[in-house]
């Protein structure tokens, strides 16, 4: 056996290590571990799936990656007109366009990630039924694929801030943490919905509805200071409220730091994510049969 291995595996020490162990295929076991180690082994697949999604997204469009800017920009203009000008929604003393655009970026990242990840398993059923790999890679790639769009639109936000003469303080250093929180929220919900979607295609129809509803429950068009002080902790049950207020605080500096509300959001996300991971792992054993 050793000589065969040496012949067929001229490189890659790791292969020998993998080959040395016998793998047992057994019936579904119910709850299983998340399997981070295996996920790590398949990190290149994750990379290639993200790369595919990004590469293909704006293929055969006239405007290409400009769409990443156009979408939030037009939302911002509409919000500024209707909420800022007509309805005179307060914006914590920040010029309304920056106020809303700053919130729209994490919101669009989240909304896109949620929609894509929820449909990801069904959309990739040809892979699921023909090849083995840790299924978590699929919703993960769908969620992370939106980050590139976010970064492109982020450049516009910086220009907008420059125009209005807003200079962020040291708090900007915390921005990656809020970005992470937005991604984790989308992944947490996306894991649940993608696994449910495999069996119940009803999910597909509820997602648009869910995203719209969620947008109004999130302080994108209005500041969370509109919410009475004593209810604000409960407002944090919507993790995106914590994310959006966190973004405003980190970048624009004028709003108050999101205190207790943020910690409630973090706790909710951790629960969603852990629950989602275990539910997904439990259901994935049947994906290939059900999808």
């Amino acid at each position, binding site marked *: 056996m050793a000589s*065969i291995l040496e012949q067929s595996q001229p490189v890659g020490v790791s292969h020998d290590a993998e080959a040395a162990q*016998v793998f047992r*295929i057994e019936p579904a076991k119910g709850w299983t571990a998340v399997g981070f180690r295996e996920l790590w082994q398949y990190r290149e697949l994750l990379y290639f799936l993200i790369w595919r999604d990004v590469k293909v997204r704006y293929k055969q469009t006239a405007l290409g990656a400009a769409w990443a800017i156009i979408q939030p920009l037009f939302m911002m203009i509409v919000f500024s007109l209707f909420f800022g000008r007509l309805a005179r929604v307060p914006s914590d003393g920040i010029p309304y366009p920056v106020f809303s655009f700053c919130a729209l970026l994490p919101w669009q990242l989240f909304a896109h990630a949620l929609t894509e990840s929820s449909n990801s398993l069904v959309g990739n059923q040809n892979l699921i039924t023909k090849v*083995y790999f840790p299924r978590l890679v699929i919703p993960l790639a769908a969620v992370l694929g939106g980050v590139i769009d976010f970064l492109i639109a982020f450049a516009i936000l910086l220009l907008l801030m420059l125009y209005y003469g807003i200079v962020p303080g040291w708090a900007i250093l915390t921005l990656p943490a809020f970005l992470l929180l937005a991604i984790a929220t989308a992944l947490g919900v996306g894991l649940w919905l993608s696994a449910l979607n495999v069996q119940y295609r*009803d999910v597909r129809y509820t997602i648009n509805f869910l995203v719209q509803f969620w947008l109004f429950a999130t302080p994108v068009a209005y500041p969370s200071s509109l919410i009475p002080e004593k209810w604000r902790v409960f407002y944090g049950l919507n993790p995106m409220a914590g994310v959006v207020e966190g973004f405003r605080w980190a970048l624009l500096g004028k709003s108050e730091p999101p205190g207790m509300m943020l910690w409630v959001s973090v706790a909710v996300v951790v629960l969603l994510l852990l629950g989602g991971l275990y539910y997904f792992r439990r259901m994935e054993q049947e994906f290939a049969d059900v999808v």
Partner: protein
Amino acid sequence: MSSDIAIRCEGLSKRYRIGKTDSYRTLRDVIADAAAAPFRRLRRTVSSNGNGNLADSIEPTANSIWALNDVSFEINRGDVVGIIGRNGAGKSTLLKILSRITKPTRGHADINGRVGSLLEVGTGFHPELTGRENIYLNGAILGMHKAEIDRKFDEIVAFAEVEQFIDTPVKRYSSGMYVRLAFAVAAHMETEILLVDEVLAVGDAQFQKKCFSKMSQIRNQGKTIVLVSHNMAAVRNICNQGLHLQHGHAVLQAEINQVVDAYLAGTEEAAEGPMEVETENFVVNEVLIESSSSPILKTFAPCEIRVRFQPKIDVGDPGVYIGFLTKELHRLAGLDLKDFTSLPPLRAGQSAEIGFSLESLPFLAGSYRVEVHLKDMSRPLIERVPRYYRFDVAETPVYGGRHLDSWFGNVGLTATPIARV
């Protein structure tokens, strides 16, 4: 587990739910299920003292089928195993379990070595991406590392013969190029165990030959291959071991020729079933192939083939296709009546006998199959009669009377020698 064994399955079983149970499973059922789950678990622990599978076996089986049922076998390292069986025998399910796509319902399999599986050619190919990009994407999906693909890249491209088009989106490829590229990626996986499902039937003859030699090369590297194929000639050629599956059971595991022969003998039994066969719109009473001059069929002797049938509906423009196949079901020749003549319309229930007279039967001694399609070109409607009709050509003197082995193929040629010395 001994290191000589690559795969060992014990009592491998897979049950699929079929029918309406799934579509009627609503969210309400799931919630009810979830509420009952803790109690079920309790019951299972109690019952598992005697028989761990009790919970499984008492479930109603009316709307579920066992695609695999208690399959046990061992595959040695370096073996090339052909899995043979009719459609629905469980071949693909077995490969899906071994490649970890789906879980078995019962039993287990031990896998000793890195597994690569090729259940479909071009899984994950994206039409908008170029050939180069798809090689990397497809390779990653099949479990190859980027460094591994980098190293093999030129070899893959050369094997697929797509050098000029490597930076063209694959949606502009011809289907042949597409398939070649897809197979090339998979064929260059570095794995100890390769699982292949009916993918050798793609591409043109030239490329198939190339695939076969690639498989032989993989085999000669001492790797283990498990192969599903309906192409018996190819299976005999590549494999050294065979596993015959029937209705989810492993019927026979042995040397490949023995298994193929047993399988073909089995299909012959099926081929000699009831003479009268029905399709959706036709009843076929009889298919006859006989020689007017002798009781047996002989090479180069005249003969007739006739199909007697009745349509169940009024047929405006009746047609018959007759195919001649080897016993491995390779098509040798075909005749379509419409190329010779046209028939008057047939009323429902009206009997008809249609066929051909052959001046000289061109087939060498051996067992052959006839396939029949009945048609109504006015609708149009084509129905394949769901069985093969067997006929045997007797061993009679051809080419001067010597015994003809497989080197002479299936078809006799009326030849005169040219010898200029």
